[in-house]
């Protein structure tokens, strides 16, 4: 299990135990985090699993694919430099302690 912190727009922190091999989106959904909607179930179709990655943690993540990059243009909340789709973030031991911020809205 890998510990990941999700911070709601109001500042509330939720710590989830994420299964290695799954995605951050799956871990958040399993933990009942309502700020991740994930309408398409991780198929990179809906951009309702948008998160902002803590700046200091960005280098822990592999680069985003071209498809993810293009999908990020359709997020409901504003896209920033540190925007990612949580369904495309695969959980591995190197992500222990990762912190991400949830956007104001997902659709």
């Amino acid at each position, binding site marked *: 299990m890998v510990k990941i912190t999700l911070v709601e727009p109001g500042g509330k922190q939720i710590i989830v135990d994420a299964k290695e091999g*799954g995605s951050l989106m*799956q871990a958040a*959904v*399993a933990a*009942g985090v309502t700020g991740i909607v994930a*309408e*398409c*179930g991780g*198929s*990179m*179709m809906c*951009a309702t699993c948008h998160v902002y990655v803590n700046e200091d943690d960005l280098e822990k993540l592999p680069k985003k694919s*071209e*498809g993810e990059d*293009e*999908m990020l*243009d*359709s997020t409901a909340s504003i896209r920033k430099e540190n925007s990612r789709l949580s369904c495309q973030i695969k959980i591995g031991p190197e992500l222990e302690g990762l912190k991400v911020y949830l956007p104001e809205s997902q659709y």
Partner: protein
Amino acid sequence: MIEGPVVIIGTGQAGFQTAASLRIEGFEGDIFMFGDEPGLPYQRPPLSKAFFKDGSADRLLFRNQDFFEKNSINIKDNCSVKSIDRQKKQVLLDDGDTISYEHLVLATGTRNRALPIAGSDLKNVLALRTLYDANHIRKTAKAGQRVIMIGGGFIGLELASVLREFGCEVTVIEAEKRPMARAVSEQISTYFVDAHTKSGIKIHCNSMVSKVLGEAEAEGVKLSDGTEIGADLVFICAGVVPNSEIASEAGLETSNGILVDDLLLTNDPFISAIGDCASFVHKSSGTLVRLESVQNAADQAKCIAKRLTGTPKTYEAVPWFWSDQGGKKLQIAGLTGSADKLICHSDDENGKISVFAFENGQFVGVEAVNMAKNYVISRKILETGKPVMLSDFEASDFDLMEILKKIS
């Protein structure tokens, strides 16, 4: 806002989303869900994609048990609703219980079409709709087997590419002159035929299967021109039929599905129908459609949750859909079936293609492979609801961002 109870028949994508959205919208009454499959609501799309390799059923669940408890959503699995008594506003369950509703939501989905051909009931003739089916396929299929898919629609082709990757010899038999003929443009069909052929899948079009060969186990198929093809496994992927019998038996109108108006109500004001089982007139094209997609099931569920909690709105969401085949992602926005003009942009070297669809000069949708940007921006253009013409595309040299900025 109604007081409840709201009763939902079917615990698939549409049923699940209805319950979840009712709570999001602040509905405090009772919610009862009945589904004839075992277990909690799960997602079907991965069944013909990642699930074959990964086999992790947990990852398919929309939400875990906790969510249903916390949100006071009463869900009963392995339970089939037998009939609807519209006078008493009750449903009858298979265990003899009756449950009263203030509002009833039919989210019964579809089932696979059975083929009226000899041998289709032999062992080793499989189909895919449910998690049960998908587990059965995982246990049965072995690398090196010869596999025949009867039907080259989305599910047939997705499964074909997954099994090919796994090491099976795959042949697809399609009755129409090209696969996915009813769903996508000719250019996209051609693109995928080429890609699948390159990966070693054989595709026969204009071919009908007249018989599944074999005594106890399927050993192959016979085509109507007499050709026989040997097989160790045969899949029937010949489309679906809506589960609308329970509605028609209760006197609700049906027409290739349970007929609903633009608020998604049946001809009984206390009964709605949504998702794969519902047919409705699509707002911008004016045609009667029954859509089989995650988008349609989820958006229709949200639409009725809003209505039941006091903010009725007509259903107008822009359809979107995807299919993953052999590492290639097809993304569709809008309805392209009625198009009278198609404009194709492709980058053959990188395996990218987009087909823009127009009807009477107006933009109606896009089909894009490995070009997410064209899908995303097109969807946004369609969601503005403003008419955009072919001439606008030409004037901007198909710069979709520029078009979007101009109209929003």
